């Protein structure tokens, strides 16, 4: 059970790092309750890179519109976990 919690935690950390890596500016932290479109620096290029990352890392192909409609990173994370 503890192992599962740790695994989930590590997966979520990895997911947050993968999201953060798509931003130019790296001097900030990404939280699971953040809304993607409200993160400073989020633009169409970042969206394109996140779509690419989600497809390659998690085999999730999401449209830009759906990506922008996600309420928080948590709801996006649920799609891949």
């Amino acid at each position, binding site marked *: 059970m503890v192992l599962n919690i740790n695994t989930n935690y590590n997966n979520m950390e990895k997911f947050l790092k993968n999201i953060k890596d798509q931003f130019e500016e790296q001097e900030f932290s990404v939280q699971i309750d953040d809304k993607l479109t409200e993160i400073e620096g989020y633009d*169409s290029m970042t969206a*394109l*890179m996140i779509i*690419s990352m989600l*497809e*390659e890392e998690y085999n999730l192909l999401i*449209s*830009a519109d759906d*990506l922008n409609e996600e309420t928080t990173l948590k709801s996006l994370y649920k799609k891949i976990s």
Partner: protein
Amino acid sequence: MKIARYLPKEIRTNQDIAEMHPEYSIEKISKKIGISKRHIAAVDEFVSDMGTSAAEILFGKFNIDKNIIDFLILVTQSPDYLLPATSSIIHANLELPIDAGNIDINQGCSGYVYGLSLAKGLIKGGVAKNILLITADTYTKYISEEDKSNKTIFGDGASATLVTKNDADNLGEFIFGADGKGVKDLYVRGGALRDSGLSPEIIMNGPNVFNFTIRVVPKLIENVIKKNNISSDEIDYYIFHQANMFMLSHLKRKIKIPDNKFIIEMKEFGNTVSSTIPLVLENSDIDFIGKTILLAGFGVGLSWSAVIIKNYGL
């Protein structure tokens, strides 16, 4: 196939764009999309001018007698006029034989392959023997002053290809497709009859176009290989529409194409729409003669196309 290109004189560098938009991190973005320069048509330079120049360069470069041309195909989405076809203007400029037919194809990124298929059909159907296929676009005229993203991606350019019976024999089976639901992911608003009160302006949802290519292109490549009844090992080179390096790199990884077979060549031109594939064929240091080459176009429409050429140029 014999190919020539024409690129407008004016060049827009990343530095130029940085000066127009100081808040924009163009160097970082251009590294991802792999473009450092784009050619820009002059204010008084249009598709008929560029297409004519490309054809004149083709005739001179290969010592082609223009009187052998019996059909002219122009692929463009930035015509001089709503009517007549811009190929009519080029036909007159080049003084092609009066019994040579002409037609415009309104396709963009998939357009060169469309042009090749029409050329093959005309030759195989006994309608024509020597076809002049021109691609030309001036998308930069559609880009608004504020639109830094599209300024970074698109450049203007033209190509001219002579397609003869040998070339038609070497062109294999084609695959096409369309998804009109994505029309507004890349379109020009205004300038034609609908929304005619508006000045023409290009509108692109880049992430949606990217999403479309991931959905469609891998299957397109698989299907064209299958339809041509060959194995992927037999393909020497893959030349995709040069949309941007980021998108192409993703597709290369997804389709598992070896680096040495996959060509990315757009740094000096940007995305020139229907001219990207012939620009690679014309400009590359690689000797394509005799090779088996897969061409694939995809984008505005949304539209896609692919073909395999065997014994290229023989």
